[in-house]
């Protein structure tokens, strides 16, 4: 049962390694969107500091929807998904492996490159650390919610656009508390703890329900 988890995780990472362009597309999209804002709104330090939390999160939300479309569709088209569904293990475990692989390939790189944003936006060092922390907690939620939408739209024409429309409204809580934590960390004497705890709660909740809901949606989609 756990073996299906490792097989799928290893396979997805290996496939991504053979085809690196998909990882870099997401990463460059994130960096480009973020660097467009200073060009548009001007380089005034106070303004940039004020908009940085929102910009980072919105760029992360958009970047994470980019690769969602491919999460299940490649396996669906070549028949591997049927193999996974018919494998003698729980489908939700296999789905969790796919989600984890997706996060490692598209979420984690965003966390690691985010200090670069600090340079664009004059952020103090402790704010950059907070930003990395909330992205680390929040981006898995994006992958997990996104998996549900990707499974629901599997096999539909124009599914890619539909995924974004379905999933972006669901990202709002993560956006509000994620950006809130970064803004708060720039104020004196205010604790960011409630934000972090709420994000952790979202993350745990999504981890429990998302693989299960996604598995149900996949079974419906491949029928």
């Amino acid at each position: 049962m756990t073996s299906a988890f490792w097989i799928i995780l290893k396979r997805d990472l290996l496939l991504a390694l053979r085809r690196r362009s998909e990882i870099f597309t997401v990463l460059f999209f994130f960096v480009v969107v973020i660097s467009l804002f200073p060009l548009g709104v001007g380089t005034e330090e106070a303004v940039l500091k004020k908009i940085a939390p929102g910009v980072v999160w919105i760029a992360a939300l958009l970047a994470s929807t980019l690769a969602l479309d491919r999460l299940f569709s490649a396996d669906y088209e070549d028949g591997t998904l049927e193999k996974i569904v018919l494998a003698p293990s729980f489908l939700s475990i296999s789905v969790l492996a796919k989600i984890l692989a997706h996060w490692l390939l598209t979420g984690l790189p965003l966390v690691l490159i985010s200090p670069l944003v600090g340079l664009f936006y004059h952020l103090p060092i402790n704010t950059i650390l907070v930003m990395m922390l909330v992205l680390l907690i929040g981006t898995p939620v994006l992958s997990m919610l996104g998996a549900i939408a990707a499974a629901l739209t599997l096999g539909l024409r124009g599914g890619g656009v539909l995924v974004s429309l379905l999933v972006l409204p669901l990202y709002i809580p993560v956006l509000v508390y994620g950006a809130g934590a970064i803004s708060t960390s720039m104020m004196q004497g205010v604790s960011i703890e409630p934000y972090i705890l709420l994000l952790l709660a979202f993350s745990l909740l999504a981890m429990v329900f998302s693989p299960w809901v996604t598995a149900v949606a996949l079974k419906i989609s491949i029928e």
Partner: protein
Amino acid sequence: MSLVVNNLQCIRGEKELFSGLSFVLTNKQLMRIEGQNGTGKTTLLRTLCGLSQADDGEVLWHNLTIKKQDEVFRNELFYLGHHNAIKADLSALENLQINTALAGASYSEEQLLQALEDIGLFGSEYKSSAQLSQGQKRRVALAGLLLTNAKLWILDEPFVALDGFAVKKLQDVIASHVENDGTVILTTHQEVPLTQGKILTINLDQSNNKPNRSDND
């Protein structure tokens, strides 16, 4: 060991593909499903392995519906669909290894290489699957048949895209599985000669859907 199908009905859209379909299939039996294009052969196979839901009726394996014993059933099932489940970015060997591992079995590299050689892919084991022809990809998928311990094989057009050598090989593999107490259900226009065991045929063109038996003991 038996597969029992009771009063199965499938409707797609407005069209009733088949209804009142019942049969019993035990070991040492091979069932051929015939019918013109669009008569629901693939739908029937997908329903039998649980990928699609029937609109009425049930499929029993060991006297229990397949839904109630999902994991047991899937452990004893080998399904080959239209698609080969081959990743273009992986080699033939890697594809075979991952697909057999997903089915819950692990084999040594020698066993995997031997299976690929037996199915006629000697020299292509480490080639990227993007360079393999359609028939060769089908062979990689079929190499899993040489290794699997599954009792029930459900094969959707297994002979498509294969050349004479591979067709002969696959006929032998299927025949020996049936002789070794296995059960095979397939859709094909190709004859599968058996030395022992029984061949049943279902023709989905007919409205009554009664299996015709042609004994072959």
